[in-house]
C-alpha cells in the first residue's frame, strides 16, 4: 500500500514537471484572517480542476495507520508558510506555526481516477485552529464551504469487490471539532510523527521547514494491516489510537467514558477497556458487560459497536456509515489473543 502510494507520488511529480506555469502562491491572509472563506479556491491550495495540481508549497503526506472513513481515499497536504517552521516535539507531536494549514481531501478512486468529494481544512490562526469542510461541485471547478455539513449519495466499492450505495456524510463544523477537540480546543490529529508516511522527497521538504528534538523521533509506527511493521498488539493499539483515541482520551470528546485509547493510557488496563464496564453505552452495550472481554471478541462491547452502523450503537459516532470489516477483524484477532484473568 505504501509502495503503491510512493509510485503514485512519483507519477504525480512527473505530471507536475510537465505542467505549464507554476500555481500562484498560497493566499496566506485567507488562512490567518478571521472569517470563513466561502470557496476553497480562495486559499490557492490547488490549481485547475479538482485536487490534481496542488500548490508547490504544499507537502504531501500519508498516515501509516489512517482513520477509516467509509473506504474513502484521502489525499493529505500540509502547508507551512515560508519563513516559519514546524516543531516536532519530544513526544513526537507536530506543532505548526500560525499561518499553517492541513488540507485533507476525501474521495474515491486511486491515481488519475481519484474523484474528490470534499476537502477539509484545518487553519492555524492566531486564535487557534479553525476546522472547515468544503464540498466539491459537480465540475470540480471549486469546493464550497458547508459549515452545516451535508449528505451525498455515493457508490462505494469495498476491497472485497462488493458495491455499496451509501449516504456519505460531510461533517459539519462542530463535528470537525468533536473529533479534533482537546480540552475544548480544535487540535490536529494526524500529524503525529511516528504515524506519518512521507516519501524521501516529502520528508526532505518537511525537514527543511521543521525543527526536530534532540531525542530521535522516527516515522516508523505500526501499519495496522502490515504484520512486518509491528506485533498484533502494536498494530491493534495503533488502529485504536487513530480510530478512537481522538475522542477516547482524558481531554477528548469521550473523556466522560473513562475508556482511554491514547498512547499515554496504555498502561492502565481498565482504561484501555479490559474488563471495563460501560457507563453511558445504553443499547451500545449489546448486552455485554465489558468493553473488552479478553479472549472473547463476541462478548466485547468494542467489537459490537465497531460492527454496527446504527446511530446510538456505532463507534466512531461520526464519519462512518459502513463497517470497516478489515479493522474489525484486526481487533477481533487482538481481543482473542488477550488472556483472561
Amino acid at each position: 500500500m505504501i509502495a503503491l502510494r510512493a509510485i503514485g507520488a512519483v507519477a504525480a511529480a512527473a505530471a507536475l514537471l510537465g505542467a505549464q506555469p507554476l500555481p500562484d502562491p498560497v493566499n496566506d491572509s485567507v488562512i490567518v484572517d478571521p472569517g470563513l472563506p466561502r470557496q476553497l479556491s480562495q486559499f490557492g491550495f490547488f490549481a485547475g480542476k479538482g485536487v490534481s495540481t496542488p500548490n508547490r508549497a504544499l507537502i504531501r503526506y500519508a498516515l501509516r495507520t489512517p482513520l477509516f472513513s467509509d473506504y474513502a481515499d484521502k489525499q493529505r497536504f500540509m502547508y507551512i508558510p515560508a519563513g516559519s517552521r514546524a516543531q516536532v516535539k519530544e513526544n513526537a507531536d507536530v506543532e505548526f506555526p500560525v499561518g499553517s494549514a492541513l488540507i485533507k481531501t476525501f474521495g474515491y478512486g486511486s491515481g488519475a481516477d481519484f474523484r474528490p468529494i470534499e476537502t477539509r481544512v484545518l487553519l492555524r490562526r492566531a486564535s487557534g485552529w479553525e476546522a472547515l469542510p468544503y464540498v466539491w461541485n459537480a465540475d470540480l471547478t471549486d469546493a464550497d464551504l458547508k459549515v452545516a455539513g451535508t449528505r451525498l449519495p455515493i457508490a462505494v466499492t469495498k476491497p472485497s469487490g462488493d458495491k455499496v450505495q451509501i449516504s456519505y456524510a460531510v461533517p459539519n463544523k462542530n463535528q470537525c471539532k468533536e473529533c479534533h477537540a482537546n480540552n475544548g480546543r480544535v487540535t490536529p490529529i494526524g500529524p503525529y510523527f511516528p504515524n506519518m508516511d512521507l516519501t524521501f522527497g516529502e520528508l526532505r521538504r518537511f525537514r527543511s521547514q521543521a525543527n526536530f528534538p534532540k531525542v530521535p523521533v522516527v516515522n516508523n509506527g505500526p501499519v495496522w494491516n502490515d504484520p512486518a511493521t509491528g506485533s498484533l498488539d502494536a498494530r491493534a493499539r495503533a488502529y485504536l489510537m487513530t480510530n478512537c483515541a481522538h475522542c477516547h482520551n482524558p481531554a477528548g470528546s469521550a473523556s466522560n467514558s473513562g475508556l482511554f485509547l491514547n498512547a499515554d493510557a496504555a498502561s492502565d488496563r481498565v482504561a484501555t477497556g479490559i474488563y471495563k464496564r460501560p457507563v453511558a453505552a445504553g443499547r451500545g452495550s449489546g448486552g455485554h458487560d465489558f468493553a473488552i472481554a479478553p479472549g472473547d471478541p463476541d462478548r466485547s462491547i468494542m467489537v459490537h459497536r465497531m460492527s454496527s452502523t446504527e446511530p446510538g450503537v456505532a463507534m466512531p459516532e461520526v464519519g462512518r456509515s459502513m463497517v470497516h470489516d478489515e479493522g474489525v477483524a484486526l481487533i477481533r484477532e487482538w481481543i482473542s489473543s488477550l488472556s483472561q484473568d
Partner: protein
Amino acid sequence: MKRKFAGPMSLPVRSLSFVSLAALALATPLAAKDIVVASGAGAQERLQEALIMAQPGDVVLLGDGRFELTDGLSLDVAGVTVKGAGPDRSVLSFAGQLAAGEGLLVTSDNVVLRDFAVEDSKGDAIKSKGADNIVYHNIRVEWTGGPKETNGAYGIYPVESQNVLIDSVLVIGASDAGIYVGQSRNIIVRDSIARFNVAGIEIENCFNADVHDNVATRNTGGILVFDLPNLPQQGGHNVRVFDNLVVVNDTPNFAPKGNIVASVPTGTGVMVMANRDIEIFDNVFEGNGSSNIMVIGYRQTFDDPQYQPMVRNVRISDNAHGKTGFAPQFAGGEMLAAAFGGSVPPIIWDGVGGAGASIVSSDDVPVLNLGMTRADQPIETAQPSLAQLTGDAAPRLPKIVMPAAMEAAIR
C-alpha cells in the same frame, strides 16, 4: 415539614409551567439577535447552520412544527439560547436519524435550552458535555413508541459540567435514565416529570445536587443516586432528594444488559449506591413494588483503588410511605417478603459498615438491614433483620444555588 400520605392525586410538586408566549418574549434579552428557523424542507442544514453561525447572546428561535432531522445537531457557541414555541409545538424529530450518538449536543457554556421537544433520537436525546451554566427548561423528550430496549439511553444528559439547572422537563421512554446528570457539580433537577424510563432521574458521580419537586412514576426505578468506578470524577456526595412524588414505578426493567441500571429492581423508589452524605426527606412514596428507599453498595467487581463502594452518611426523614414491597423484584425478595409478613420493608440498607456507615432514618416505617459485611456479598449469605437506624436524621446539607443569571433566564 411532616407530610401525611394522601396518595398520588395530591401532588406535592408545583404544576409544570408551560410558559406562555408573552412570558417568553419578556425573557428575551434586549441585545440579542434572533435567528428564526422554520420547520420544513432542509431543516437539518438550516438549523445546524444557525447553531454554528450564532454569536454569543443570540437566540435561535425554532418555529412551529416538526423538524425532521437526519443527523445529530450540535451547538458549540457560548451564551446562545435555543428556544421553541413550546414542547408540543416545536418538535425536533430524529426518527430518521442516520448518524451521531445523540439528537442535540451542546459543548459550550451559558446555554439555555427551552420550550421545544426532542423525539425518537437513536442515541441520547440532548447531551451537554463540559457545558457549564446550562439551563434546560420546559423541554419534552420522548421516545414515542413507549418503553423499549431499542430506545436511546438518556433523555436529558448533562455531563462534566458545573452548574446544571433542569427545570420543568418531561422525559418519557429512556432505556437508561430519563434525566441523567453525570460527573458534574452543583446541580438542580426540579419540577420535572420522568415516566416510563428505566431510571426516572439519575445523579451519577456528582457532587452537590438538589433533586426536588419532581414526579417519578411508571419507571423501573424512580430516582437513583449512584457512583461508579474507573471514571474521571467519582466519589459522589452531597445530594438532597426531597419533596418528590415517587409513585408506582412498575415498568419492567428494559435496560440493555451490561449497563448499571439493568441491575435496578423493578419497583424501586429511590436507590442510593456508593455515595456519601445523602439526604432523603419530605418525599411521597407509594406503589413501588420492590421498596421505597434502597441504600446499597456497588455490587460488581472492580479494579480501582480510588473507589469507595459503600454508602456512608445517609439521613432519611419525614417521608410518606404508602404501599410498598409487595412485589420485590430482586434476588431473595420473595423469601424476604414472606419472612416479614408478606411485604419487604419500605427502607432497605445492605448494612455494610455497620453503625460506622451512619445510615439514619426517622421515618415511621420498618427498615430492613441485610446485615452484609461487604457490598458485593451474595444475597444468599446476607443476615437480614429489622433495624432501628437511630441518630440525627434531620437534613443539614446546604441548599444548592445557581448563578442568578441562570434563574433569570427562565423567570
